């Protein structure tokens, strides 16, 4: 008898069938759906991780990584999270934690996805995820094994070596548990694909900095997950498709004119797509850059694979001090030539909220207003579109007034 389709796969299938106005976003959903099918069919070859983990080694070993934020975010896109929220609230019994992460408990309890063979996690980006993964390991240790990579605060060469040796340990761990050896040629191929994707990703970032908005900002936010496909042909294909779409739109003057350019910091509530539509269509303000649509800084080097991957982790702007993250955002804000910044802070996310006071102060010095929106990123039950619209409308008024001055 054919096994029933798990809920997450079903939702992703529905999303991937929905044709978006930006073709590359549709392509991204289709690729992610196919990846999820692989995961569901072969959980023994699958890995649960987060979006900051470089996946090149997994792809070179024929393993399927899926990241937590994508799973819970996708469920929230179609407002299918209420049961998951109930489960995480029942287990945790106290508030204060990121629902992007805690809802993963319900995904496995409700069998929306099979338990993966491996849990592999870097200590970046927050402290909630490692503890939830430890909880998952405690619950499912008969089915899964756990490898944790400690990412230090510092970025010097000793820190790179420390991470590199742990990545090397991860390869030994995977080789031991899968019985497969990491093939150097395959790793070289994934590195090449990763570098190719980076090259196109950079071109997309650069064209967006200097052009009128060639795609809607909410698609930039949705595409943040493409970095988890780096090392596959899929990532190259999606990004090239996006770049070509943008070039074509520019050539054919197929883009809208907006009064304001905006920059989006941190995540976006996946259920709130109408909000961006309101911002763009009704208020004439477009998001032209997003912090989370991040393209790695350096190319991967096959002659030094583990150190190279370590550098990829450590060069991410969320790594290290809050001051350095603030500096990265400021640089992006200036490069994108924006008139305002919107930060969405999930209620209990310390990563998102920690940077806001410092960022507000620094943006104030260059006369760029910042709007901090707060809310649950997953739970849409307390979300009020009209309240959010009022806040955004007031913010755009401030942006407009500053321009007039």
């Amino acid at each position, binding site marked *: 008898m054919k096994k029933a389709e798990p809920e997450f796969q079903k939702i992703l299938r529905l999303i991937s069938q929905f044709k978006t106005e930006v073709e590359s976003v549709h392509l991204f959903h289709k690729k992610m759906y196919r990846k999820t099918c692989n995961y569901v069919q072969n959980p023994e070859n699958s890995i649960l991780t987060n979006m900051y983990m470089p996946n090149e080694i997994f792809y070179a070993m024929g393993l399927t990584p899926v990241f937590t934020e994508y799973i819970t975010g996708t469920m929230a896109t179609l407002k299918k999270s209420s049961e998951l929220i109930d489960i995480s609230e029942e*287990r*945790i*019994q*106290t508030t*204060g*934690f990121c629902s992007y992460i805690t809802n993963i408990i319900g995904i496995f309890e409700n069998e929306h996805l099979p338990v993966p063979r491996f849990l592999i996690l870097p*200590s970046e980006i*927050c*402290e*909630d995820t*490692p*503890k*939830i993964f*430890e*909880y998952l*390991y*405690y619950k499912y*240790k008969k089915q899964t094994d*756990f490898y*944790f990579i*400690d990412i*230090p*605060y*510092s970025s010097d060469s*000793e*820190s790179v070596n*420390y991470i590199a*040796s*742990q990545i090397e*340990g991860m390869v030994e761990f995977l080789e031991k548990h899968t019985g497969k050896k990491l093939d150097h040629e395959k790793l070289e191929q994934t590195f090449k694909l990763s570098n190719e994707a980076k090259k196109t990703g950079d071109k997309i970032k650069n064209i967006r900095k200097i052009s009128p908005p060639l795609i809607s900002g909410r698609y930039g936010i949705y595409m943040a997950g493409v970095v988890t496909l780096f090392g596959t042909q899929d990532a190259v294909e999606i990004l090239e498709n996006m770049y070509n779409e943008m070039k074509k739109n520019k050539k054919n003057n197929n883009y809208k004119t907006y009064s304001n350019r905006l920059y989006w910091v941190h995540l976006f509530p996946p259920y709130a797509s109408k909000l961006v539509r309101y911002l763009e269509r009704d208020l004439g303000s477009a998001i032209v850059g997003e912090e989370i649509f991040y393209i790695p800084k350096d190319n991967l080097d096959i002659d030094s694979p583990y150190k190279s991957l370590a550098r990829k982790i450590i060069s991410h702007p969320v790594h290290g*001090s*809050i*001051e350095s993250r603030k500096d990265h955002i400021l640089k992006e804000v200036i490069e994108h030539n924006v008139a305002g910044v919107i930060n969405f*802070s999930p*209620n*209990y*996310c*310390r*990563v998102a*909220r*920690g940077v*806001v*006071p*410092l960022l507000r102060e620094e943006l104030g010095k260059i006369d760029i207003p910042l709007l901090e929106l707060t809310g649950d990123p997953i739970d849409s039950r307390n979300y009020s579109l009209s309240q959010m619209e009022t806040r955004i409308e007031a913010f755009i008024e401030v942006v407009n007034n500053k321009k007039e001055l």
Partner: protein
Amino acid sequence: MEKKNNDPVIGWVCSYVPEEILYAAGIKSYRIVGDYSSESKTNTYIPSNYCSFVVNTVEAAMEGKYKFLDGLIMTNSCLACELMHDVWKREIDNLMVYQLDVPRINSSGAAIYFKDRLIKLIENIENHFNVKITDQSLFESVKIHNEIRKLLSSIQSLRKNKNPPLSGLDFLNICNMNYSMSKDEYIKYLMKLLKLLKIKETKVHKKKRIFLMGSKIFHKYVPEIVEDEGGLVVYESMCSSNKNFDNLVEIKDDLLLSISERYINKTPCSRMHDKGDLIKSVKKEIDDYNIDGVIYYSTKYCSSNALKGVEIKEQLKNEEYPVLFIEDDYSKNSLEQVRTRVNTFIELL
């Protein structure tokens, strides 16, 4: 605290900061514990969803309560501590603020990495304060700190007795003295105390033996409530107590590596990666100390402690150990709620 002879004083927050190094440099160390007040002037810098201990501590700093400090050593313990480092560095003048990188795993690689971080810390202290840490001064310092750990462990062991010679509140006060007193005086005090406690006549009590675990507790309120409500705290697994003295630095040729190993191998803080070792040690302590009930205490918004608490609580409950999870905001505001819950828990034991 008052400074003597203008000698430098360095503050520290996390129990992964090796005091041995400060002592070896001739610098007085002072543990920053906040003041358990409930006002907050720190909203400008620290969002409301950050750990209340951190908010409280920065608040105290901004009010000038740590003006006597010449330096501060923070760790990358959690995001809140990282922000605390940034805020302190920006807002408090004339202070050396140093961020010490502490690994989250227990492995030989992590010990070597941590040793390297300690070398950098030493260089920084030597340059900033114009002092020299020699092999000999480090050796002497290790001996002194090991002595303190041995004495505290001996006092701790007395609490295994059916009728312990000291309460949880007494032990908390003893531990707290370590954070501001001179180490030499503290050793003398502990030796004298241990002698007295060994011969002290103890009264038979009918109190429930409580194991307190979770975040740090430096204030008297929670243990006082437990003991007022019919409990007796006989063991704490917290970085304010046993995690600060539970193992020794092994005297080896590479003393700095030994110091690193001691900190990496000590009973882990909840921020450390744990694949089930913590619950094993908790169960052992429950047996060793003949525990009637476990109270897991967490400060509000401390992810590592609260989320680890979920797992610990579930595992203990599955094996029918009585356990209570309580959370407060490191202020006096929630104490009566804590009292109600503790009272009910102890009545049910």
